[in-house]
């Protein structure tokens, strides 16, 4: 084969696929940096992800409704308990105690993390509970896939590591996290269209109390 005449021709030469090429070296550098970035969320957030899983199992497995109520407090940005739409729109859980006649099962634990009084004057309808299972499990599975990926990235070098497995693990981990994020997005939009609480930029969850307790 003659020497390449331009860049397009050059890409088809074996100089690019050679392990000594700078392309392969930078491929390794990029992959390791991206893996480290994914570790920050996948490994670093394990306490919070497995706390949510613990509450979920408390509810689903031990059939203790308090687990779901705790999850409702943590995920109140997008999740509403059944019956919470019937609570009086002027009731503010941050400042007042539970009004008589209201079922406490429809309020989060702690009570002050229940949805605040909606400024639109309408409470959002309750969420479908399977979406909570999906979101919690999505992030747990994402963590497990990330741990396997770390095994490949740290246990093997760039000459022996199977690229297809790495690509598959990254794709699966990304897709499962995107599914969870999508439901948080869609449900959050549904909840906020009906009852947008006073939204502040500094807080995660759209309420001033979050910066205190979070």
């Amino acid at each position, binding site marked *: 084969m003659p020497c390449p005449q331009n860049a397009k021709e050059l890409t088809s030469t074996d100089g690019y696929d050679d392990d000594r090429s700078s392309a392969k070296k930078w491929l390794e550098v990029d992959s390791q940096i991206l893996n480290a970035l994914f570790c920050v969320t996948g490994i670093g957030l394990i306490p919070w992800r497995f706390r949510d899983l613990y509450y979920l199992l408390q509810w689903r497995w031990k059939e203790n409704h308090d687990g779901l109520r705790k999850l409702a407090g943590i995920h109140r940005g997008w999740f509403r308990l059944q019956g919470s739409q019937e609570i009086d729109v002027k009731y503010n859980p941050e400042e007042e105690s539970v009004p008589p006649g209201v079922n406490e099962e429809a309020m989060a634990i702690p009570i002050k993390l229940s949805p605040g009084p909606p400024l639109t004057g*309408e409470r959002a309808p309750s969420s479908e509970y399977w979406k909570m299972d999906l979101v919690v499990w999505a992030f747990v599975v994402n963590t497990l896939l990330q741990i396997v990926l770390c095994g490949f990235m740290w246990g093997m070098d760039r000459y022996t590591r199977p690229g297809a497995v790495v690509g598959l693990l990254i794709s699966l981990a990304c897709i499962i996290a995107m599914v969870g994020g999508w439901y948080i997005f869609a449900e959050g939009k549904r909840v906020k269209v009906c009852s947008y609480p006073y939204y502040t930029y500094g807080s995660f969850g759209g309420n001033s109390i979050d910066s205190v307790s979070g």
Partner: protein
Amino acid sequence: MSEITPDGDIEVADTPGRPQPTRPGNFLRNASQSFTQSRLPVGMFHAYGHYASAVPTMDDIQKGNFSKEGWSGPGQRRNSQAHRASDHHILHWYRCRNESKKDVEKVTPDAHSLTAEPSVMEISAHDPSVPYANGYQFPPNHSKWEATLIALKGFGRYVITPVGFVITIYSLNVVGWGGMLFLILCRGTPAMVAQCKFRSFMSGSYQMSIAGLYRLLSTRCRALRMRKS
């Protein structure tokens, strides 16, 4: 710690959910409680979904649902047909809350309730499609340009928050390094061929010229093939 409210009810200020941080034995309890209730996003896509669901549309900004200060309660109620009769309660609550925040000097509860009540009565639910008797009109919609500026300011305020800053830096890193990975994988970086050390004439301004660059590359490829065969 408790205090007597003007109504005579005893209000317990020290709730069991909030232990006083001054007692040293409460440190672990505080830490574990703030962990079990913390509302950190559990993943990047959690944060993306959360914030994306709060991003206003262009229409929201133009109508005034989303103002310079963020999501606007009055703006949203003005454009909403939902439960107009309940507006009194919310406006009352919102007004009391804002007033109690602003007031520096103490106002006695009686005087406060006296001043608050008539102001609530002035506000009445109103269908925005019907013009007011006194000639008041709703503020006009923002232009596209004004709405864009408000959106940019909103994004700027989000970026300078701790969570917003971290998420922005993280996302830029993922996009940047991921973009480079993508370019390499789809062979978008043709200059990244194997380098051979035994032809070391890469000094001076030789490779600065187009012809020099071509000869450099062709020599390298030839050398690589020679070594392989």
